[in-house]
């Protein structure tokens, strides 16, 4: 080993704690990068493979009832490749030992189906016997939520009749990767499940023998879906078709796509921030560390080492640190990514998870790590080697200090000598001070981003479930009913207040843009559902016209005053022109609202209701639920508190998993910046401080001079970090804008407090380490050697 190589290893050992801090900063940056991008790539890959292997259909449509003979005509439509007809029915389930309402959907399984579409993936057991009406296969996530195994039993209320079903299999379906109940905003696997039964017995129970009420199909390559949808709609209109839609509008696919799109945003924003901050810090730290070797560099140059040799030497030192950091980061990122992908895979049911770590992700992470490290080295060595060696070995010219701004303002008299030293030192090296400050500010900012998502979610919940949806229970009628149904419910003991609503599936059109949604008809003086305006204040619904969620209005490109075409997708399917009269704000989903009587008028019907919201005495909720469940006219009942609880649970697992990782890594970065700044400051000013000790300053006094600067920089960096953090939060909020949910820009005091605390605590810890190092200053050395 050459002497320079030995120097390298010994230097590395001497600066091991600093090197570790730098490596960890790099590791944090790389880990975040790898975590998000590998998770994203894995989920995309997994989904594609799943769709391919299980032959996920491309076009879907539900209808009231059509004879099986129509299937052949669908198959003959131009552009249609394969057709699958099914019987699909809503069901209420009764599960022993579970008192909350459980809704389900039963899908038929046809052993004669030749299409091969939407194949189930059998996880456990077997598929139901085609001849038996008491066997069912259930979705895996639902099975897990209740601990069901093949052989277990559950009771289903099928078309008003209680049927005892035996679970024979646990399955996965590409149609229900994201399993979510109708009208729910988020999955709740205990309270909604999908079941499969043999077609014949199911069809018998629903009077669908020789008929179907659901179609899935695939397209011939190159045929535009739009044409097929239109032909399909006109073919199924006489049979009560609900409007065909392609994958884009298929609930599971759409939700998953939205989530993946958001993850792609996270996977771009977070890693880019982290990796840039890490690269930036690495660059600063390295260039300052190398600068402290100014004298040795000059000596080596005096002996005839050329610049390249010196850059090679320090470059190797830096690369060792950066590469070990990057490797730790790759490993950590892959491990975390694998775990995060598993968390996601538990929401979206995939048969298997294909965890992939794309080569370009690894290569980019390594290149950024190496690049920033090398740039820092080149910069510092270049600067140190630029001056003639004689100058490098000479003590630096006494640096030019100036009176600081405070002193110029005449406030200098208020400051003791050490405080003046701090201010002048910072003023003399504004670039260095700014870099340290920027690093600290970014650490603060990143931590705010993590915390922000948490408070934004709580704010969403409060807005949606406390200020807007104020009922305790939502009841959905199987068929529209008159308001007489309300009196019956109101008379149930424990029911405090009842409000009916009308809701109808529509397609909204404006110019070339269209959107499938529900129009909710609401009582104008209602209490249980508030339509919030864009300032989040309750607004009264205008007697005519449509109110749209602001996001939906943007999607459709309309402003109040514009007229929309409303194509009703139920019943007589009327098409009407309706003006947009106001906007509403909500963070979950998008909606269209009308006054209920206006909606009834639009549908040319009388006083009809689709369901009701109930306010129920908390002690009577279970009883009321049981009473309602028994009625065949009621398709489903949902309890608000369970919706909130399941929502929180879902959110907690996904978003909070990665924000907690992000926060932890941000804390590492904060600590890394502060620690390295302190150690470098000590290296740069050790002699000066030792001289002061010789002159009789106490350890406390010199610690004040050294750490006072760092403390002051930290304090200044915090408000700067707040500003950057707020900007990042605003950017993320603007990126997390989808039909499913919008993240409100709510940055709470606690977010600021948390971010500032982590940075301050890091600073204090570092101050302590430096304080102990100050005790080891060699006072004699100062007297012996120059400067």
């Amino acid at each position, binding site marked *: 080993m050459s002497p320079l190589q030995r120097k390298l290893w010994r230097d590395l050992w001497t600066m091991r704690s600093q090197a570790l801090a730098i490596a960890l900063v790099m590791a944090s940056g790389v880990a975040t990068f790898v975590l998000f991008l590998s998770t994203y790539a894995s989920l995309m890959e997994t989904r594609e493979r799943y769709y391919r292997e299980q032959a996920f259909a491309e076009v879907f449509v539900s209808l009231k009832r059509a004879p099986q003979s129509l299937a052949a005509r669908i198959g003959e439509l131009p552009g249609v490749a394969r057709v699958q007809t099914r019987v699909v029915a809503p069901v209420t389930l009764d599960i022993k030992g579970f008192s909350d309402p459980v809704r389900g959907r039963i899908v038929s399984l046809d052993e004669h189906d030749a299409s091969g579409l939407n194949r189930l993936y059998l996880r456990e057991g077997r598929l139901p016997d085609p001849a038996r009406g008491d066997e069912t296969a259930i979705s895996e996530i639902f099975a897990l939520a209740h601990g069901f195994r093949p052989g277990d039993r559950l009771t289903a209320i099928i078309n008003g009749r209680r049927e005892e079903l035996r679970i024979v299999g646990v399955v996965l379906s590409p149609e229900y990767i994201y399993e979510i109940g109708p009208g729910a905003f988020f999955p709740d696997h205990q309270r909604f499940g999908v079941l499969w039964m043999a077609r014949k017995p199911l069809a018998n129970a629903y009077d669908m023998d020789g008929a179907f009420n659901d179609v899935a199909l695939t397209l011939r390559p190159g045929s535009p879906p739009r044409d097929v949808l239109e032909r399909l709609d006109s073919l199924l209109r006489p049979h009560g078709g609900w409007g065909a839609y392609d994958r884009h509008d298929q609930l599971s696919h759409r939700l998953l796509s939205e989530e993946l799109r958001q993850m792609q945003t996270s996977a771009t924003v977070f890693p880019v921030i982290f990796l840039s901050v890490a690269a930036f810090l690495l660059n600063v730290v390295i260039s300052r560390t190398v600068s402290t070797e100014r004298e040795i560099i000059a000596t080596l140059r005096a*002996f*005839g080492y*050329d610049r390249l040799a010196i850059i090679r030497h320090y470059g190797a030192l830096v690369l060792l640190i950066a590469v070990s950091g990057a490797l730790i980061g790759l490993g950590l990122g892959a491990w975390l990514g694998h775990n995060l992908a598993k968390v996601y895979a538990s929401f979206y049911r995939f048969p298997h998870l294909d965890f992939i770590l794309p080569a370009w992700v690894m290569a980019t992470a390594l290149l950024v790590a190496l690049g920033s490290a090398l740039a820092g080295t080149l910069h510092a060595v270049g600067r140190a080697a630029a001056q003639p060696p*004689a100058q490098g070995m000479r003590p630096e010219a006494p640096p030019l200090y100036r009176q600081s701004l405070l002193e110029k303002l005449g406030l200098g008299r208020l400051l003791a000598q050490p405080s003046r030293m701090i201010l002048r030192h910072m003023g003399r090296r504004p670039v260095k001070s700014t870099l340290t400050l920027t690093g600290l500010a970014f650490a603060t900012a990143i931590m705010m981003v993590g915390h922000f998502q948490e408070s934004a979610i709580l704010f969403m919940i409060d807005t949606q479930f406390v200020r807007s949806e104020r009922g305790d229970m939502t009841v959905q009628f199987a068929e529209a009913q008159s308001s007489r149904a309300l009196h019956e419910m109101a008379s149930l003991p424990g029911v405090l207040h009842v409000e009916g609503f009308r809701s109808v599936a529509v397609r909204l059109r404006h110019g070339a843009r269209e959107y499938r949604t529900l129009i909710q008809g609401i009582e104008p003086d209602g209490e249980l559902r508030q339509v919030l305006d864009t300032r989040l204040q309750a607004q009264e619904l205008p007697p005519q016209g449509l109110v749209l969620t602001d996001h939906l209005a943007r999607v459709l490109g309309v402003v109040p005053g514009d007229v929309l075409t409303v194509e009703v997708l139920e019943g007589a399917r009327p098409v009407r022109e309706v003006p947009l009269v106001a906007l509403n704000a909500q963070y979950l989903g998008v909606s269209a609202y009308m006054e209920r009587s206006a909606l009834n008028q639009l549908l040319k019907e009388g006083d009809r209701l689709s369901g009701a919201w109930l306010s129920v005495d908390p002690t009577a909720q279970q009883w009321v639920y049981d009473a309602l469940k028994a009625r065949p006219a009621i398709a489903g009942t949902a309890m608000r508190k369970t919706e909130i609880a399941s929502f929180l649970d879902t959110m907690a697992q996904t978003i909070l998993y990665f924000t907690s990782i992000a926060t932890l890594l941000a804390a590492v970065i904060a600590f890394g910046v502060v620690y390295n700044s302190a150690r470098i400051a000590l290296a740069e000013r050790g002699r000066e401080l030792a001289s002061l000790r010789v002159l009789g300053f106490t350890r406390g006094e010199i610690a004040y001079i050294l750490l006072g600067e760092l403390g002051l920089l930290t304090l200044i960096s915090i408000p700067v970090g707040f500003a950057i953090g707020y900007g990042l939060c605003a950017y993320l909020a603007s990126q997390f804008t989808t039909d499913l949910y919008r993240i409100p820009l709510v940055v709470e005091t606690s977010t600021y407090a948390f971010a500032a605390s982590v940075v301050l605590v890091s600073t204090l810890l570092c101050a302590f380490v430096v304080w102990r190092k100050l005790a080891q200053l060699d006072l004699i050395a100062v007297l012996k050697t120059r400067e």
Partner: protein
Amino acid sequence: MMPSDAIQETVFEVRGLTKVYPMGEVEVQALRGIDLTLYRGELVVLLGASGSGKSTLLNILGGLDTASSGQVLYRGRDLTQANERELTSFRRHEVGFVFQFYNLIPSLTARENVAVVTEIADAPMSPEEALARVGLADRLDHFPAQLSGGQQQRVAIARAIAKNPAVLLCDEPTGALDSSTGVRVLQALSDVNRELGTTTALITHNAAIADMADRVIHLHDGRIGEITRPVTRRAPSELSW
């Protein structure tokens, strides 16, 4: 003038050399027009008070610093016109340096500090031999922090001579040392000069050291005051201060 001047080989030829430093906001005129010739194998002492410009002159001779104007010829090659790469090569192959504060690399042992230079030299002596020449054969594996000031300076000399340089430039080599330690260091330099024939230029502000030189160049305020020749060149052991 020495009669032998005519046959002596010229190593350095300096003409009209000036140097101006910016120091913070002021300019320091370190050299104000130096004319000087150094010959092969001689031991020259540059004597002057602090700030007389002697270190600046030495640094420019050694290619550690650049001149503001004037010309420095090393064996006919113009150093003032040399670029960075040529200066590096000049230092690497021709010059050995000894500094007042040793400038050893603290993380390397005595042997390794010497090896740093022998590794990149053309025909060096071994680090062990170089250290033996300065009387440190028994301190090979000591780190700088484990050596006294005099020992550290002798390591620095070993490092400077190990590459068999044509020129040895020493900037106040005894400046940080007491008299008896200083004598040992000077003895080592004198031995090298005599045994290897290395042209040696030695800076000092200590007039007592001048007696070991072939020639003494007196510098004052950036100019050469006079050039004297001791009556007899004395061995370092005869010196004291």
